């Protein structure tokens, strides 16, 4: 299908630590269509941040393939990779530390353009910077301001403008609004959606905030301890979550309502260690529905209905 922009196959990232091997990302596979948004959710330690960095090769994958627009990313050499980066960009979580405090907005936004040598003429390049600032809603009078003079929302807009500077096809957004106030979050999310429509972008949206990801994504992938445990279109995930962890995750969201409050499914225990994990269901120790096989075998990812994948022994068995 030529409609698939990104194909991730059995992607793994392991770190060597004194106690053994830390499985940060442990064999994740998915496809992403052009123009769509995939939300990746999970709690701390699930590997969602690592997988974003690994796809972009900001962190070298241990094994697996990442096929972007037909090109196998991990196989490119440094020169080719640098060139490929024009197509795949990253928006960071922390709007302060992701901007060089000694560079003005203009310098930050034009840097990628300069590096890729896309517009050699300084005046034309500056016009492009102004255009980008306009797209993300930054006033022209801010051209020579430094990040510390601006609030979180504006700083994040700079981050977005920088990501758009080279006209990428694909952007990974790593918790882009988590550090912002609620009223500003909505502004930034609307902006990102608008840009996606206008520029035909494909997004991966990494977050721990489930309400935000529902609003923003077409499909959602849930990660736990480095593995993909459920993937489904957003409406289906929220109305019919199959994996016990997904169910617990959804029910844990504090609902801003005082009537008809949903039943809370509380998890027991704590997340197990990602170091040298056993080949069993990694969620078994906390699962309220665990059966003996869960502590013996690792469940594979099964498609239980069109486009709905789950890795759980209790599901998909007729």
């Amino acid at each position, binding site marked *: 299908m030529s409609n698939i922009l990104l194909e991730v196959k059995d992607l793994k990232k392991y770190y060597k630590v004194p106690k053994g091997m830390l499985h940060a990302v442990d064999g994740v596979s998915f496809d992403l269509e052009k123009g769509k948004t995939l939300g990746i959710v999970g709690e701390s330690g699930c590997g969602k941040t690592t997988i974003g960095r690994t796809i972009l090769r900001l962190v070298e994958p241990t094994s697996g393939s990442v096929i972007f627009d037909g090109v196998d990313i991990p196989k490119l050499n440094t020169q080719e990779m640098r060139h490929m980066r024009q197509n795949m960009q990253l928006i960071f979580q922390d709007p302060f530390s992701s901007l060089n405090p000694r560079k003005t907005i203009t310098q930050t936004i034009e840097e990628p353009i300069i590096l890729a040598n896309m517009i050699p003429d300084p005046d034309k390049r500056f016009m492009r910077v102004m255009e980008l600032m306009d797209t993300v809603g930054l006033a022209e009078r801010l051209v020579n301001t430094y990040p510390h003079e601006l609030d979180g929302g*504006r700083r994040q807009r700079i981050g977005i403008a920088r990501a758009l500077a080279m006209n990428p096809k694909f952007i990974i957004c790593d918790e882009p609004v988590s550090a912002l106030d609620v*009223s500003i979050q*909505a502004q930034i999310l609307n902006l990102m959606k608008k840009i996606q429509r206008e520029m035909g972008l494909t997004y991966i949206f990494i977050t721990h905030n489930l309400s935000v990801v529902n609003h923003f994504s077409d499909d959602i992938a849930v990660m736990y301890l480095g593995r993909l445990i459920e993937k489904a279109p957003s409406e289906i995930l929220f109305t019919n979550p199959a994996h016990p962890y997904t169910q617990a995750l*959804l029910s844990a*969201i504090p609902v801003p309502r005082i009537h008809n409050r949903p039943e809370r499914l509380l998890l027991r225990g704590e997340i197990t260690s990602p170091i040298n994990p056993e080949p069993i269901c990694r969620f078994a120790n906390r699962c309220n529905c665990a059966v003996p096989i869960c502590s013996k075998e690792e469940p594979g990812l099964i498609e239980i209905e069109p486009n709905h994948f789950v890795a759980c022994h209790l599901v998909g068995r007729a």
Partner: protein
Amino acid sequence: MESKKMNEQENTLEIRNLVIHYISDEEVVKAVNGVDIIIKAGKTLGLVGETGAGKTTTALSILNLVPEPQGKILSGEILLEGRSVLTMSELELEEIRGDKVAMIFQDPMTSLNPVHTVGAQIAESIEIHRKVSKEEALKQAKEMLELVGIPGERSNEYPYQFSGGMKQRVVIAIALTCSPDLLIADEPTTALDVTIQAQVLKLINELRRKYHMSMLMITHDLGIVAEVCDEVSIAYAGRIVEHGTLEDIFDNLRHPYTKGLFDALPDIEIRRSELKPIKGLMPDPTNLPSGCPFHPRCDYVMEVCSQSLPENKWLSETHCVQCHLYKDTNESRL
């Protein structure tokens, strides 16, 4: 750790007209600008607001912990069970801190001392306030750990051996050792994963009912408010713009900022194509707008809003709002 009987009439905390500014050579940060708070015995008040609303400063002032020399309490009264905090001596304050009033901060990573065992840290509070021997204190510390759902044997372990959620439980254990009358929780679950947050909130709920504690829960998350609180105060630019019971705020809100907060929330049940943000930016506490601080962002702004501060209007026995829309009426104007 017996539960104390409370005089039902007494208010655990009363703050009246609190004004706190941070004054430095370059600028004056108007953090708190006339805040009124009342927490009745055994009840939980949710203090809701975003950055710059003045929530943390207000919380710190209750124990007279506002950082000096910049932080100056310019006016106001803080009464803890009828006693004025601002006139207490340092010795008197030390007696209440940890004993009558306990505080939990946002980041469990930095609230615990990494070089002491968790048992020792819980015992420290017991030793100071209960005047028992070290062995007795450590024994009681173990019991506290069990109470918050951590096996007592772990009391000899160090903070680094615990996860974020467990560290926060230890922090809660320390806070509750002396059965305080008032627990101040400043965004206690913001740094935690959502499933752990659910566990910790459940724990906090159980314990406050068991000890009949009053609580000030500071948060920006209306979901947490719905789960844990009895009453809500909405803070903006150092003022309380709306206050009421859960029903008042969730079913009958009146202030445009409160409405904005609810509208900006993505609802997991209804997927809208666009979220409805509040336009504009958070006000700069060194340069607050004239009149009502929310007027530059308000969809219902009128001329009077930029000229004068709205008075506090009581719409019912429990519900009050600071907005010019309600000068002459109690009906919703939104």
